[in-house]
């Protein structure tokens, strides 16, 4: 299906990512069908989305009328077969292969084969998700970043057996949603989560070697290199556990490529429970009152 024919977008999963995707889709003029297995989460997500859109209107970023229209475009459902009416489907359910695979198998029977199924997976293989469906060519990766309304980037991932046309339509879709798409192969970590690894890993090595303390390393990266945040500040923001898990997953996925070897020091930090801002302490300490 080409981009001109797409009027209605189905979003599977109304969590952190799904809600953000539904919001920008509605704001970009698409009808949205937002699906979740959990009705309560779904209602909360709808409340959150309309809250964001209303606030945008209050701030003058759109007119009252535009906001109302955008909110009206979003319909929620807990009934998967309703996806039959969608022209493009973006999936953002939890990061579990079997879960995603079984959902795609159900979609095989519900949707017509020319509808693109785009997965927001961060760490799974798009090829593997696609492999068990009847029409694997229509399955592509569409990796958004959190928070979706603010982050401009979308990685469009062509699985080993994705159709070229499906990749191109997904690129166009990302643009329609106001994003900047980049096209990548189906490799672990895609571009960003792979290329960024040394930012953390080399900083951790420097700390382990005693070249400088973590605050000095952060400062040199910021003030010497012009980065917005140093690696240790960023780990605290992301969560040390999340960041460590990403390193371990990329390391494993590349068959223990030494460039991606995780840090023992970071593992100890994770074990200690100092996970960053969310626990009040990571590499740095955060006061109760401080903005987490």
């Amino acid at each position, binding site marked *: 299906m080409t981009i001109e024919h797409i009027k209605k977008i189905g979003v599977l999963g109304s969590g952190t990512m799904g809600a953000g995707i539904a919001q920008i889709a509605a704001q970009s003029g698409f009808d949205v069908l937002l699906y979740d297995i959990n009705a309560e989460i779904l209602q909360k997500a709808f409340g959150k989305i309309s809250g964001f859109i209303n606030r945008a209107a209050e701030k003058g970023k759109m007119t009252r009328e535009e906001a109302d229209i955008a909110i009206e475009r979003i319909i929620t459902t807990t009934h998967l077969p309703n996806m039959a009416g969608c022209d493009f489907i973006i999936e953002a359910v939890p990061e579990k292969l079997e879960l995603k695979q079984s959902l795609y198998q159900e979609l095989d029977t519900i949707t017509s084969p020319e509808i693109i199924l785009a997965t927001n997976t961060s760490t799974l293989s798009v090829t593997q998700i696609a492999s068990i469906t009847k029409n694997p060519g229509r399955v592509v990766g569409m990796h958004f970043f959190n928070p979706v309304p603010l982050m401009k980037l979308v990685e469009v991932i062509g699985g080993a057996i994705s159709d070229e046309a499906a990749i191109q339509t997904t690129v166009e879709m990302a643009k329609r949603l106001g994003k900047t798409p980049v096209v990548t192969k189906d490799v672990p970590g895609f571009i960003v989560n792979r290329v960024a690894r040394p930012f953390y890993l080399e900083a951790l090595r420097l700390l382990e070697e005693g070249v400088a303390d973590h605050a000095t390393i952060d400062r*040199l990266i910021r003030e010497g290199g012009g980065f917005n945040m140093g690696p240790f500040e960023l780990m605290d923001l992301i969560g040390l556990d999340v960041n460590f898990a990403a390193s371990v997953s990329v390391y494993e996925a590349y068959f223990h490529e030494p*460039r991606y070897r995780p840090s023992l020091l970071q593992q100890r930090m994770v074990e200690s429970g100092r996970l960053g801002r969310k626990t009040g302490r990571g590499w740095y300490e955060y006061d109760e009152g401080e903005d987490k």
Partner: protein
Amino acid sequence: MSNVLVIGDGPLAYEITETSKLNGHGVTPYFTNERGPDFSHPYINVEQIVSRSTDLILEAAKNKINYWYTHGSEYPKILTDIPILTLLYTESATHISNWLRNAPNVIGWAALPPFEKAKAVEIMPGLQTNQATLEAAQQFFTSLGKEPVIIKDCVGGVLPRVVASLINNAAYALMEGVASAADIDVAMKLGTNYPYGPLEWADKIGLDQVLGILEGLCEAYGEDRYRPAPNLRQLVYAGHWGERTGRGFYEYP
């Protein structure tokens, strides 16, 4: 205000020359490989370019061996009093001092282009470095409006090591056909807020310089993790060293 002899073979050397002049220093520049590979003078005898009035030698060279090694045994006789600030892309300060018969007037420093934007500079005293040399280095960078930050002597310092590793990793991704150079750079700028994409940054630093840092790290640590991407090496062989040669990962018509 002092008389500085700036010697080097990459964009950082040219940039620091300008910054030094702007801040009132008398500068004598001596560059090699300004427009790419230059085979005309592989070995430089610093003794012949240093003058009586030179107060400080600022070296920003990747091929240090060309400056310090071959004539090293002769240098201490004339250069023991002049602070030598050596850019730690490929060797440690302790190592360079060793080439100069463990001279105490050698100290390491590290930064990356664009130097103009840097607020802090890394300073690395070697095991032989004396206090006067450390103070001279601190004073010099302070005079350029940069904050000197002392860290432990090592190859690549903090910023060059982290950024060169990012560049290497991006070069591997490019070689493996994961995405185009432009898409890799866009992804890193928008997805993680980096000031430059790793490949465009490499073109500013100089691909020869980036390769030097990686080779230096390989040598210092003996670890596979720093092995340079073959496509980076190929570009360096071909003289595609980045912006200054008109071509690197990108072309600059």
